Structure formats: structure tokens, C-alpha cells
């Protein structure tokens, strides 16, 4: 079960922290990279909405200051996401995932709409709460196994507690906006397609990576 994402292609060692690229992690990494490039080069769309009660429509335009802030948060989100996809260290994974959560809150909270900000506030509370079980999971793994290296844990010689795995999944569920927070459609229909997409992309990517992490541990 050590090669569930395909055989590792190469390792990049930073002391005891190892980054590894397998067909699975490199696919996720490249997608995070591609969408980060889209964020860099795209201008946001102008959303058209119907003016009810009149024969007219209006376009929502994003101001330059809002654009700059959301673009910065989206790129930070993309970088955090890329880190979370390839890291071989459980603690680094939790750090990157919590950074994804913070950036996601920033991306949506900058929208000048009361409905979107309410939804962002509620999501922010969930994301903050999600960090607790996630770091608790990393702490439990460190305490019971003496290591946080996924490569060492994947050898199967040390048993990772089931509770630690469950807490890790719970934490990631709290951090990710989609799919478990997707019913808050205000956030996903907010203007600024390249930035909003980064929210849903990062959420799905961290879910995919945690699935691999859980199967590997």
C-alpha cells in the first residue's frame, strides 16, 4: 500500500523533511500550479445580473484594490496548496492546509457584499475550529510513533492510532470550503472567477491529498 499514488518519481530532501513526487502528487501539484498561473494572468470577469422589475441588467465590476488583495490571497492559496500536495511531513501538511483555510477566508471576505461576508465569517469560524483536530492529529502521531515523516510511517512498522487519522480527516473537512461547505452558494457565485475557483480547487486538492495520506499511514 506504500505506492497507492504510483511509484515515487523523485525525492527532494531538506534535512529530515522530504518532499516527494509520485504520479498522484505531481498531478495535484501541476493543477495547483496551472490555476495559480491563471490567477496571475487573468482579469476577473464582469458578472451580469438581471435587474428585477425592469427591462435591464447590470454588471458587477471588481475594484482595483479588491482585485489586488484577492489576487494576492489566491496566489498565496495556490502556493500553500502546492506545498500541501508534495510534502512528505505530516506537520508541514497540517500547516499548509491551515494556510489554505486562512487564504480561502481572505479570498471571499474581501468581496464587498453583506451576504458573501456573512458566509465568509461562518466559514472562517469553521476553518478556525478545524485547525484544532488537525494539529491534535499531528501531535498524536508524533507522540505515539515518534516521527512525522509520512515515508517512515508508510513502511507499516509503526501503527498510527485510528483516532489520529479520524481527527486529521475532520480537520481537513473543516478547512476545505468545498464540498462540505458548498451549500453556502453566496461564496461560489461571488464575482472574481479566477479567485473563487482557487477556493474550490484548493479544497478539493486537500481532500484528495488527505485521502492518500490516510491510506498511506
Amino acid at each position, binding site marked *: *500500500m506504500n*505506492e*497507492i*499514488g*504510483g511509484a515515487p518519481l523523485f525525492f527532494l530532501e531538506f534535512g529530515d523533511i522530504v518532499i516527494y513526487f509520485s*504520479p*498522484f502528487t505531481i*498531478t*495535484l501539484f501541476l*493543477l495547483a500550479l*496551472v*490555476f495559480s498561473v*491563471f490567477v496571475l*494572468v*487573468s*482579469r*476577473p*470577469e*464582469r*458578472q*451580469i*445580473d*438581471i435587474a428585477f422589475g425592469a427591462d435591464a441588467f447590470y*454588471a458587477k465590476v471588481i475594484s482595483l484594490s479588491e482585485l489586488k488583495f484577492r489576487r494576492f490571497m489566491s496566489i498565496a492559496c495556490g502556493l500553500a496548496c502546492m506545498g500541501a500536495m508534495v510534502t512528505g511531513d505530516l506537520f508541514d501538511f497540517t500547516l499548509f492546509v491551515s494556510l489554505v483555510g486562512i487564504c480561502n477566508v481572505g479570498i471571499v471576505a474581501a468581496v464587498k457584499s453583506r451576504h458573501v461576508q456573512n458566509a465568509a465569517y461562518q466559514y472562517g469560524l469553521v476553518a478556525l475550529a478545524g485547525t484544532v483536530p488537525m494539529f491534535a492529529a499531528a501531535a498524536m502521531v508524533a507522540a505515539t510513533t515518534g516521527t512525522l515523516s509520512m515515508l517512515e510511517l508508510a513502511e507499516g512498522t509503526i501503527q498510527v492510532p485510528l483516532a489520529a487519522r479520524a481527527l486529521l480527516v475532520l480537520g481537513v473537512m473543516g478547512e476545505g470550503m*468545498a*464540498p462540505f461547505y*458548498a*451549500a453556502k*452558494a453566496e461564496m*461560489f*457565485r461571488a464575482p472574481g*472567477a*479566477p479567485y*473563487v*475557483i482557487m477556493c*474550490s*480547487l484548493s479544497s*478539493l486538492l486537500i*481532500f*484528495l491529498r488527505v*485521502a*492518500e495520506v490516510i*491510506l498511506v499511514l
Partner: protein
Amino acid sequence: MIAELLFATFFGLLLLGIHRKVIARIQRRPGPPVWQEILHMLKFSFKTTWVPNTASAALFVGVVLVAIGIWTAALFVVTSGGSLLVIFAIYMLHKIVEHGFGLSSGSPYGKFGGVRSVISAASEIPLIVSVAAIAIFTKSLLISDIVAYQTLHGPLLLTIPPAAVAMYVVLISKMPFGPFSIVESKELVSGYKTEHFGVWRAGLEICNGLKTYVLLLTFILVFAGGLPFWLILLAMLLITLSLSFVCALSPMLSPYDSVTIQTIIAGLMVAYVAILGVVS
């Protein structure tokens, strides 16, 4: 690889054409010819192409390339016996593509198609549960290992039929005109793809053909094992016919009903795999 890619695209589009034809005949309509989807793809390739004034241009165009890219990668992974987890990842990332298609144009129809795509993400959970059930038995997620396991122990379709049913539900959720096709429902014109015309739409049609071929091929390899090529194509046709019957005879659900039913199926599957894990 180029020949395989072309074959997969055209055969996938042919299956989608057959799907439309069968649905039409069940509903006592003549329906379009079976090669209609191939004609669509060719027609759109030569039609006038534009990017709407309101669109986020780079994303509007780039997402088409990403759509073709991810399903080309998926075809390569399946045919080379790579990891099932990569296929699962690509399947989930197709949601982002739909979301990107919908939001990038600025159109309200596309936007709501994209939003519906995100809220119907519960349809992915049965797939990961299927993957987990397969991993419990085969101890590997490489498609080549799964095929080899079935050569020794018989098809997984007979060993873990609920996992096969879960993946069949996933196939239904990706077929057009099905009960879960809320992302391209008629009240949203064409949903997330409303504003993509001309060569961008042709790219989307190519993606649809590839997606259909890859998902059906994966289902057959994972649950029936390695079969002769002609038998795989026949099995794909039979599965498509069964999906057409389901789509023709069931009404399209409302968005929240669709999500509720998919969540219930996901819950049942999680319980099944939990029991399977304890028993094994």
C-alpha cells in the same frame, strides 16, 4: 498514443450519440443519428469563435485546455495500468473545470451551472468509497495490480457488488440527461457550457468523449478485469445502453433532491466499507 487518443474521443462521442438515440426511442421520439455528437464536435470546430466581453478571457480559454489535458492524462493512466487514485483525482477535478467554465463567462446561466456543479460534489464520495473497498481486497490501487488480482480471484463485480453499484451511480451522475444532470439543466439554458461556443465548445465535446470512454473503461477494468479489446468495447456499449434506460426512465431531480440522494448513497457506502473493513 495519438491513435489511442483519437479512437477514445470518437468512440466516446459515438457512445454519447447512442445514449441520446436510445433515450429518444424509449420516449417514442425519432432522435438524432447516433453520430450526432461527432458531428457536433466537427461542426463547432469550424464555427465562428469568440470570447464574451464580460469574460475572464485567460480562464475562459484556459479551462478548455485543462479539461482536455486532464482527461488525456486520465486515458494515459488507465491504459498504462496506473493508480486508480489518480483517476479519482481527475474525476474530482473535473468539478473545478465545470466550475471554471460556468464562472469565467460572467453569464448568470453559466454561473448557476458552475455553482450547481460545486454543490453536487457529494457524487464523488461513492467513488472514493469504491476505491477504499477495492483497496481492502487487492491491497493495491494500481489498475494493473487490480486486473492481475481479478485474473486469480475472479471479477470484483462478484466479490464487492455494492462498490460496483456505487461506481455505476457515479457513471449515471456524469451521463447527460440523467437524474443528476442538474449542472446542464434546461432552465439554465445549457448550464455551465452556455457561453462556450465555436472551437471552445468543440474542445468541451472532445473532453466529454474522452471522459465517457475513460470512465467506462475504468469501470470495466476495475470490476470485470482484463478482457479482450473487442469485448471491452462491447461491454462499454452494454453499460451505455443500461445507463440510457436509467436516464430515459427517471426524471431530472431538483438540485437539493439530487444532492440529498447522492449523500444518502454515499452514507450507505461508507457504512458498507466500514463493515467490510471490520470483517476483513
